[in-house]
């Protein structure tokens, strides 16, 4: 069996990649996917730790996170559709009229 550390480090890598994705992509939908990747990496950590502690709490948390992700997707995609209707683009760099 592989040590739990490896799983946690994998989850840290995925978490970081998710963060970097948020920072470097302009497409709002891809940014959002990167956030999903962040949540997913947390899920991996939860499952790994659940295995470590031999308890199912960590697995149950993953359920909740998935629900939250689903809820965010519903709202987020709706927002993006609306923005696209108004601005005909989902480039976040073009959403910079509010500043200063």
């Amino acid at each position, binding site marked *: 069996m592989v040590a739990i550390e490896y799983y946690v480090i994998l989850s840290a890598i995925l978490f970081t990649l998710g963060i970097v994705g948020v920072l470097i992509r302009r497409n709002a939908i891809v940014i959002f996917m990167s956030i999903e990747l962040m949540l997913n990496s947390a899920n991996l950590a939860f499952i790994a730790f659940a295995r*470590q502690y031999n308890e199912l709490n960590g697995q149950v948390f993953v359920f909740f996170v998935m629900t*939250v992700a689903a809820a965010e997707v519903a709202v*987020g995609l709706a927002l993006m559709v609306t923005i696209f209707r108004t601005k005909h683009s989902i480039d976040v760099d073009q959403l910079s009229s509010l500043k200063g």
Partner: protein
Amino acid sequence: MSGYGIEDLVYILPIVFLLVWALVLVLVEAFTKRPDVTMLLAAFGLLAAVTLSVIQFGTEATAFKEMLTVDGYAVFVYMLVLASGLLSLGLAYDYNRRMGWARGEYYILMLFSIAGAMLMASAANLIVVFLALELLSIPLYVMAAFVPNDASSEEAGLKYFLLGAFAGGFVLYGVALIYGATGATNLMDVVAAALGTNSPVMLLTGAALILVGLGFKVALVPFHMWTPDVYQGAPTPVTAYMAVVAKAGGFAALFRVFIAAFPSVSADLTPVIATLVVLTLVVGNVAALAQKNIKRMLAYSSISHAGFLMMAFVTYGSALYADAVTSLLFYLLAFTVTSFGSWAVVIALEKAEGKGLDFEDYAGLGKKYPMLSAAMLVFLLSFAGVPPTLGFAGKFFLFRTVLEAGYAWLAIVGVIMSLVSAFYYLRVVRFMYFEQGDPEVRSEPVLNLVTAITVVGTIFLFLFSGPLLAWASEAVLALI
């Protein structure tokens, strides 16, 4: 079979009632399509929840297998956010009708969000903190983007959503790391496990991630940058609502989590917190000096108030934490009353969505609308911490707590920054009283009522700072 009893529901009756009432309102709205009816019913629901909270006062219990703690602290925040909800309804009702997009869903979403804030104040389990945070935030994303076909509002909504979800990811990963470090997410178990280790770096990292995520919600520098943009773009009643309720919920959770779960690492975290406080105070106040739009100015001002609120936090690990929470709750109360008042005045002057929000639009207000400008003066003085206003009492107790804890330098920074803040508040006063202009104000009954209540509250409650403080200090006792 499951080990749950009716008492679990009774302990959190205000929240249960509010959520069930929101469900009822979904049906009512679906079948009547009458926003005003929904609004009235929502107001009734909030009032009922306030009543239930009053009954709740004095309860000290955990509910739902230690997922929630109901104590004076939680009930204080319940009342605060419920009252905020009522004031927000008052602000939104006239505004939404004036702008022509009144919809009943607005009030329903607000009820969900308030329930989220209340859950945050009660949450005794990190996973509940996360879920409550989402329940608070998701309706807010929608409300920020509520204005149809308005680029600013939609931009605000999307910015808030993306950054909010981003910060939510930090909180979640923090929870995961704490779970990994301690094998628990329940605050009691976390603190018990943390006490066994002498330098729990993973726990610290988890705590720091939670601090970042919640710090984003309450707008601490450098996690604040969404605030001015979103406050400016969102419809003003929503801005007023989130300025208070998101802060109240965020701070309520932050304090409970840190005091209950992370006292063992306070020595490591306190310098971080103090640095965040200083950054927040300086950036918030200095940036506000350069603003010309009143919504942005108030946004930066609310950032600086987050700094003041956070100031109480430096003592969280010491024996003085109870005083810190007392000052926090009191300051939160002061901020709530003052903030809603000032936003009410902003709404009164807002001609169309996004119009009438520059300082120039306030020129001549003092001559033409002496009552309104006097009210604004009171709010600005309270923001600046000038007696005899609630804001003064809030700052006074806060600085005293910080001094007691031995952070004299921090108190000095606070005092200097409140002096700086006086300048941008007084700029508005200058426009109101010393500049020539012809502002146009709509007199709307509900809005006027909110202004009147808050202006009376700002001064009148100040006279009863003592009893209020006593109340807040009782609220603290059962925190852990």
